[in-house]
């Protein structure tokens, strides 16, 4: 039994996966109720689930970008499965949604690692302080390519005169629409508390180094709007509101809804993906 489907999500070509085909063939061969067979089958199933589910979600995002906003409900807490999903995503580069899913996975891995790090028993903490560290604990030690931060990433839309179209207290993003055929810009910034009227999503990095100055590289993406390419840098004190980064774009001539994905990086790691749906009228 092969795993390929020509029409896994209707109207969107399936993403081929030789890995999934191999895993499927292996799963089919494992028969019997021996505990070792059962364990192996279960392990294969988890990897198959990771492979199939990431492909399904990428296809679904291409068919319906607003699916972004609900995807976090399906992200598991299991570190092994999360890493298997990340590995699967590296084979699906070039698809819209790949980066978004990767951001969700990284955020969940970050949170899970942080919880494990905090749960380490006291004697291990003593050993760490003395420089002795078991291999297992070393996985959860702070990494130099991340800087800790606890706050919110905030997003709004302005016109070319820096007037808010959505994302201010007077024009909250949930109920405001943007005029069509208009020069606009996406404003992205970070601050310690959610911003009134703006799209605000929590941004939590706990497995990095502590520092008063924090940095993120920000880029934007959308399957249906032409947005500028490239990352811009935010560098700010963690207790204050950062400057805003701006990404210029033109709204289309027709009305519609568009899922804009904002991605934040530290060094080369994607630490956060946030998706805001904007409505053009």
């Amino acid at each position, binding site marked *: *039994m092969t795993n390929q*489907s020509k029409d896994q999500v*209707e109207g969107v070509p399936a993403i081929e996966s030789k890995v*999934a085909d191999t895993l499927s063939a292996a799963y089919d061969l494992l028969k019997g109720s021996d505990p070792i067979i059962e364990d192996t089958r279960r392990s294969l199933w988890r990897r198959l689930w990771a492979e199939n589910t990431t492909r399904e979600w990428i296809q*679904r995002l291409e068919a*319906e970008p607003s699916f972004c906003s609900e995807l976090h409900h*399906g992200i598991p807490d299991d570190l092994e499965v999360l890493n298997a999903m990340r590995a699967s995503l590296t084979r699906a580069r070039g698809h819209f949604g790949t980066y978004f899913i990767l951001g969700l996975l990284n955020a969940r891995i970050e949170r899970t690692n942080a919880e494990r790090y905090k749960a380490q028993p006291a004697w291990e903490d003593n050993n760490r302080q003395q420089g002795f560290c078991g291999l297992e604990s070393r996985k959860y030690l702070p990494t130099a390519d991340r800087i800790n931060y606890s706050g919110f990433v905030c997003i709004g839309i302005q016109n070319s005169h820096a007037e808010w179209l959505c994302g201010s207290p007077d024009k909250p993003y949930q109920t405001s629409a943007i005029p069509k055929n208009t020069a606009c810009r996406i404003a992205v910034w970070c601050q310690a508390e959610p911003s009134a009227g703006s799209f605000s999503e929590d941004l939590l990095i706990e497995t990095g180094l502590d520092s008063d100055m924090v940095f993120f590289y920000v880029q934007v993406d959308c399957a249906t709007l032409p947005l500028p390419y490239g990352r811009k840098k935010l560098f700010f004190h963690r207790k204050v509101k950062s400057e805003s980064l701006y990404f210029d774009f033109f709204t289309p001539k027709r009305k519609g809804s568009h899922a804009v994905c904002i991605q934040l990086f530290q060094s080369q790691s994607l630490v956060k993906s946030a998706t805001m749906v904007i409505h053009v009228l």
Partner: protein
Amino acid sequence: MQPPKVLFIEEDLASVRFYIKEMQDEKLEVVHIRKADEVLNKLDSAGATVSLIILDSAMPPGKSYESKATESGTQTGQFLFADIRERLPTVPIIILSNFSGLEWIQKASEKPKVKSLNKLATLPSDLIKHIRMMLK
């Protein structure tokens, strides 16, 4: 004697084929429906012969549920569940989903003859065990 008939409502093909194969190996008759719009027609025409229904939460709403708050299709199953229960109040239902933490699923699984399972944790052989238990 007719084998039990299972209605499998699921859009995804990649994982469902393992479940279907296992059920067929266990001599269960499986009817696979991928679209929400086809479910009610099937129930109206052949609902009386269905022994058990397996339902996913996430699937495109189709025309039948496009006006409902399906949250981009992730909760289409909620409305399907309500319509299925209205037509078949006593048929056992298994909600098999990647979004099993959703509130509507947790509330539904508290009702009689309803069970919620997460796809990641449910191998095809596990599903068979649950089906057999619910058909008793």
